[in-house]
């Protein structure tokens, strides 16, 4: 039986290696086929470009681990951004930038809490709950300000543009989220409970753990990440637009699944999700560097995603693999 366990371990490991190799391969291909790939500018771009998807992907991962899903993140990004910009801009009544940003993130957490309560307390399907809040929150973003807001204060761009040594500040922030988040999931009781809930909520309940509170927590984390992504995005672009962030949730979900997460919950890791983000960002960057025509980019992107999860699949036991979302 030990041997079996080893074999299992061994199996997982092989897949992780395969996945890492895949990413390495992508990088090598990129470096060898496009002279502009390894330039400092491009690397910096990559580092910046992975931030939004990265943050959303981590939040999404936590929710997916519970067996849920959060479709509202794109709208929350827009809401947090426009509110923050509005508060800073606010003629005269403008808040100090950090305060305004805090409010923006808090808003994200609040929406997460609402999603969580509806899912946990009332047992509604996460897909529909967050689908509804996708609509509602987007509406609220426009209600708050139909027109884009570009805070005059140049300090507003700092967060998005500051560099720590060779690294963009925002990239370090995202890495921190993955680092801390990874530990949270792997090494703390609430983190483990969240994963266990995705595996078998009833069992967790029987173990005397408060399933509902943990579900709410998960959605709050996702809301937090979305809020954070929102203010970072706004500061990076320099202008807040209520229409921003449409379909962001899709890339975030794709990243998680590419990283080996199961949408039926209980399986997935921060490491994997981060890998997924890398893959997506590299694909985009490559297709751009090659100058692939926009619509063909879409065609290829879809095909590549399929190809990648075909590699991942080997991780799923057959039974799990059977046609469930």
């Amino acid at each position, binding site marked *: *039986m*030990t041997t*079996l*366990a080893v074999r*299992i371990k061994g199996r997982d490991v092989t897949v992780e290696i395969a996945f890492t190799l895949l990413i390495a391969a992508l990088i090598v291909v990129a470096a060898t086929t496009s002279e502009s790939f390894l330039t400092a500018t491009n690397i910096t771009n990559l580092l910046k470009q992975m931030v939004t998807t990265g943050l959303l992907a981590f939040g999404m991962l936590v929710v997916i681990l519970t067996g849920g899903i959060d479709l509202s993140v794109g709208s929350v990004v827009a809401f947090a951004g426009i509110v923050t910009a509005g508060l800073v801009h606010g003629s005269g009544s403008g808040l100090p930038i950090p305060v305004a940003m805090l409010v923006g993130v808090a808003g994200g957490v609040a929406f997460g809490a609402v999603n969580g309560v509806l899912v946990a307390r009332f047992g509604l399907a996460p897909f529909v709950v967050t689908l509804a809040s996708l609509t509602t929150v987007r509406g609220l973003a426009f209600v708050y300000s139909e027109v884009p807001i570009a805070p005059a204060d140049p300090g507003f761009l700092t967060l998005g543009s500051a560099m720590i040594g060779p690294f963009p500040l925002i990239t370090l922030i995202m890495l921190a989220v993955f680092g801390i988040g990874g*530990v949270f999931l792997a*090494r*703390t*009781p609430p983190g*483990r*409970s969240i*994963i*266990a809930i995705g*595996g*078998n909520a*009833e*069992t*967790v*309940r*029987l*173990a*005397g*753990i*408060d399933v509902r509170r943990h579900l709410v927590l998960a959605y709050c984390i996702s809301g937090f990440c979305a809020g954070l992504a929102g203010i970072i995005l706004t500061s990076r672009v320099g202008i807040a637009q209520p229409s921003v962030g449409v379909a962001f949730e899709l890339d975030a979900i794709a990243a998680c699944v590419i990283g080996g997460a199961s949408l039926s919950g*209980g*399986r997935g890791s921060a490491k994997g999700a981060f890998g997924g983000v890398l893959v997506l960002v590299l694909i985009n960057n490559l297709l751009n560097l090659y100058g692939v025509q926009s619509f063909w980019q879409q065609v290829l992107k879809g095909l590549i995603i399929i190809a990648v999860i075909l590699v991942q699949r080997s991780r799923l*036991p057959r039974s799990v693999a059977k046609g469930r979302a």
Partner: protein
Amino acid sequence: MTLRLRDVHKSYAGVEVLHGVTLHGEPGEVLAIVGANGAGKSTLIKILSGVAPMSSGTLSWDGDELGLRTPHDAHAHGIRTVHQELSLVPELSVTENLLMGNFPRRLGLIDWPAAHRRAAQLLHEAGFGMIDPRVKAARLSVARQQMVEIAKALVSEPRVLVLDEPSAVLAGADLDALFALIRRLRSRGVLVVYVSHRLAEVLELADRIAVIKDGRVVATTTPGETGEGALIRLMAGRALDRIYPDRRPGPGEPLLRVDGLGRTGEFDGVTLTLRAGEIVGLFGLVGSGRTEFAACVFGATRATTGTAFRSPRHAIRAGVAMVTEDRAGSGLVLGMTVRDNIGLTTWRSTARGPFLDRTRQRASVSAMIERLGIRPDHCAGMPVAHLSGGNQQKVVLAKWLLTGPRVLILDEPTRGVDMATRVDIYRMIDRLARDGLAVLLISSDLTEVLGATDRVLVMRQGRLAGELPSAGATEEQVLERAIA
């Protein structure tokens, strides 16, 4: 120091299934609860463990009432339960399943090495030291999962340990380990509530026995003053002159021949022939590969050596039927009605043109409910999830009998089935065999495997380790072939 249930009523959707149960248990005793399928044992236990609230009545410990609203409350009062249905988190390690909710920590973070040590120690203390705490629960056989479930209840020394049919999936040494554990706990003053259909072990283990029938306690007695026959009479409300039918006359022509079948890591070089009119037992210790062998023969998994059916479809066409051991996982569609579950195998074959033949389905389903005595008797339209464990098992059986099989493979068919019903099932298998079917009966129950069959095949670590005629063979003979 007494646990008291007084006048406990319980209704599901307005239907009362417990009608005023009054019962008490003392520390340091084993209180066995026996009863027919659907009698209300699990329901009683769900109440004891805070899973389902009672409709009315009181539960008190040492005089003061425990208002159990959640499993958490039950834990707080030292009441630990092993439920009838396995409920591990498959993706997580044994360690995590065991310590869920109370991990050893360092600097606020879970200390995994310590956790694994603690888990290993728990398993060892429980007598299940053979299980590697690092393995994912999903990798464990049914039996070992059951062991983990039991160990889970011991994470903190319980005052009351409730076991709902823990022995259903255990056999041989594993079963002995469980009994030893129960005796140790009793000697430490733990009250053990033990639900089982295996009357022999109940009589061996229990200090007191409560018999439940149709949601009422019809008797409380002790092993000293009762016996199997008496208990069965109390449970079933009728006498069972004898449990196993007569042996059948010599078998007819071969119906299924398996030659050198193997599957890497599971079983190897299995050769056997099933003849018309015979019942063949397949005994083996847990993990010996019987289930995997059966699944492979049936075409549910691919063989690596030898040939079997290409798919369940082909097997069924050839007149083979298989009742799997995992009811919830592969036997039933829990969300669907009893009618749909029984009809599943025959929708296509009985279709009129493109349409289901509903009238025919209705007729054959109610005939089956009648024939197998599935309770409640008007359950056709009920979600199968609302049936008791044993009755769910009958639904699975019914589904397969409808295909009019010529070869019937039964993997632990009497698991969780009450004595009276078992007798019915033995009779039914016997009748089928006499009608010319070949039956392969996979079982971990020695008496059953000897009593209900014509010959016994023994599997050890994935290989056939011998064959005995059931008549005259002793349990020891079978066991020594099963143990490496």
